[in-house]
C-alpha cells in the first residue's frame, strides 16, 4: 500500500490525487496531499508512476501496512523508483524494452 509521501520532495502538484483510481489521497491547501484512505489502496503503483518528483513509495504488501521508514527508502533509492523500471511514459522513450513477444514464442 502507499506508505510514503515525502514532504521534502513533494512539489504540491496533486497529480497523485488525480490519478489514484481508488481516491486514496486528499489534497491539502499549500501542503503535500495526505494519505486519507490508506485502507482503500490497491497497490497498483500508479501514483508512484505519475509522481514527477519521486516523492511517493508504494510498499509491496497489499494485505497490511508495513510501516515503511521514509529515510530508509530514500537512502536505498527506492523512493519513486517505480518510474524508472522501464515505462515509455515515464522515460519518454520512443522504443520501449518490451520483449514479451520473444517470451511468448518460447513459453
Amino acid at each position, binding site marked *: 500500500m502507499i506508505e510514503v509521501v515525502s514532504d521534502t520532495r513533494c512539489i504540491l502538484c496533486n497529480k497523485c490525487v488525480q490519478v489514484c483510481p481508488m481516491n486514496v489521497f486528499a489534497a491539502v491547501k499549500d501542503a503535500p496531499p495526505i494519505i486519507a484512505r490508506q485502507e482503500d489502496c*490497491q*497497490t497498483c503503483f500508479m501514483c508512484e508512476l505519475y509522481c514527477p518528483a519521486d516523492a511517493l513509495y508504494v510498499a509491496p504488501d497489499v494485505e497490511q501496512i508495513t510501516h515503511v521508514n521514509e529515510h530508509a527508502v530514500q537512502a536505498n533509492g527506492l523512493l519513486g523508483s517505480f518510474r524508472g523500471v522501464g515505462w515509455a511514459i515515464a522515460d519518454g522513450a520512443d522504443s520501449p524494452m518490451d520483449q514479451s513477444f520473444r517470451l511468448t514464442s518460447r*513459453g
Partner: protein
Amino acid sequence: MSTSRQWQTFNSASAGFLRDADVLVIGGGPAGAWAACSAAAKGARVVLVDKGCCGTSGATASAGTGVWYVAPEPAKRLAAMESREKLGGYLQDRAWMARVLDRTFESVNLLAEWGYPFPQDDDGELRRNNLRGPDYMKLMRRQVRKAGVAILDHSPALELLVDEDGAVAGARGLRRQQGDTWAMRAKAVVIATGGCAFLSGGLGCNVLTGDGYLMAAEVGAVLSGMEFSNAYAISPAFSSVTKTLFYGWATFTYEDGSPIPGAGSHGGRSAIARTLLTQPVYCQIDKADAATQALMRVSQPNFFVPLDRAGIDPFRQRFPVTLRLEGTVRGTGGLHLTDETCATGVPGLYAAGDAATRQLICGGFTGGGSHNAAWAMSSGFWAGAGAADYARQSTRASRRHFQAPAGVALNDNGAAEFDPAGITRAVQNEVLPYDKNYFRTEGGLSGSLAKLDSLWAVVRGAGQSAVERVVKAREAAAMLATSRWMYRSALVRTETRGMHKRDDFPELDHRQRFYLISGGLDDVHVWARPAAHHPVLENAA
C-alpha cells in the same frame, strides 16, 4: 420487474453538475475509451465518467496485456479461432471471433499510428501482440481528449435514468472530489465498467465491483455466462501483482521444498488451489535461463517490483504464492448482448469490455492474456458507434420526465442504511474460498446462495445510504447481486466446462453446450439459450 413500483421521479435540477450528451460512457478503461472515441468519430457529443481516473483505472492500466492481434491471412485466422475452442467448451461463436479479429487488427494498427511504441523484432517488424498498460492507457486518455470527449474523473455513476417509456435517458452519480452530485441527460449510454473481482486485491482490480451489472439490471438488462466467473490468478501471497506469464517457468512446492504434483500455471492451477486449502504453496521461477531472465525483467518490470521491494530474488529464492479471485475480469460472464452493435436489449443501453459477456470469443475459458484486450477495443468501438447511431436517430430529444430505479442504497424509504463493509465481507466469505468457488458442488452453491439471498433481503429493506458511504454501499450491493447471478448459473450448469468446475459433475456434458442467461434482482432467474452453430462439431455429430 419487481422493482418498478419503487421507481422515483428524478428532478435533474437537484444535481450539482448537469450536462446533456448524445452518448454517456460509464467507465474509462480500454473499452470505455474506445467507445468514447468511436462515438465521437460519428459526431456525437460524448461524456465519459470514471469512478477513478481514465488512464490509470482498471485491470489494464496498471498491468498490461497480450492482444489477440492476428494478420488477416485465412490460415492464421482459422488457427487463432481454433486454438482455445476446446478450452472454452465450444461456446465461442465463429462469426463473432472473425469480426473481433478484423476489428482488433484495425484498432491495434491505429494505436501504432497514434504513437504507441511497439517494439521491433530482429527483422525490423513491429510486434503488436502486447500492450503495456500504463503506456497504452495514457495514450488512450489522450485520444479520448483529442476526440473532444469531456472526461469526468472520480465521478462514480450511481444509477441509470430512464424516460417514461423505459428507454435509458442518462445517469446520475457523485463527484467525489468536489463533494457534489452529477446528472447527465444522454440519448444513449455505454456501460464499460469492467467485470467484478470482489475486492480481492488483484492488480488494478479493486475498482471492478460489478457496478455496471447492477445499474443495467435495475433497468431490465440480463447477463450471460455468469457461471464462468471463477478465474483465479497467481500472485505472491503478500502482493497485488497478478501477472502470471512468468509462472510458466516456475516450480511450485510444499513447505518442505518438495514439488506439488500436477501444480503449474497452465492446467495446474487446480493442484495449487487444492493445496492452498490446507497449507501454503511456494514458488520459484527456476526454469528460466539467464537470457530469459533478462528478457523477463525488461518486458514486465512490474512483475518484479514487489519482489524486489520485499528483498526476494524469484529466480533463486522460493516465495509464498496465493490465488486471487478475478471473477468476471478474467472470467467471461457479463451483460448479455443482443446484436452486433453491443446493444443490451434495453433501448439506449450498450455494453462493452469486461462489463459484457466474452463467451462469444472465449467460451468458458479465461479471456485473460489477449482475448479480453481484443474484446475491449472491438466491443468498445462497436458499442460507441452503436450508441451514437441510436442517439442520432432518437426522437426522444425533448424528454421531460426522468425516472430513477431508486435501487438498493438509493431508496429513500426511511429505513436505516446497511453497513457496506459488513455486506462486502459476507459476500467475500462466499465467493473467495477455493472450496466454494474454484471447486463447486450443489451443496456448496446452495449453501452460499441461501446466505447471499438473505443478505440481499437485508440490503433491499435498508434505506438510503449517506453520501459518504453510498459508493461503497452500491459496490457492496453490486458484488452481492453478481454473486447471486454467478452461483444461480453455476447451480444450473451440472457439468464441468471451461473454468466452471463442478466436483459433483466432473465431466463435460455435450447436451449442455448452451449459454445460460441470468437476470433479476429480488428473484434471480436463469434460462438457457442455444449456442452458436459450430461447423466442425455439428458436422461430426
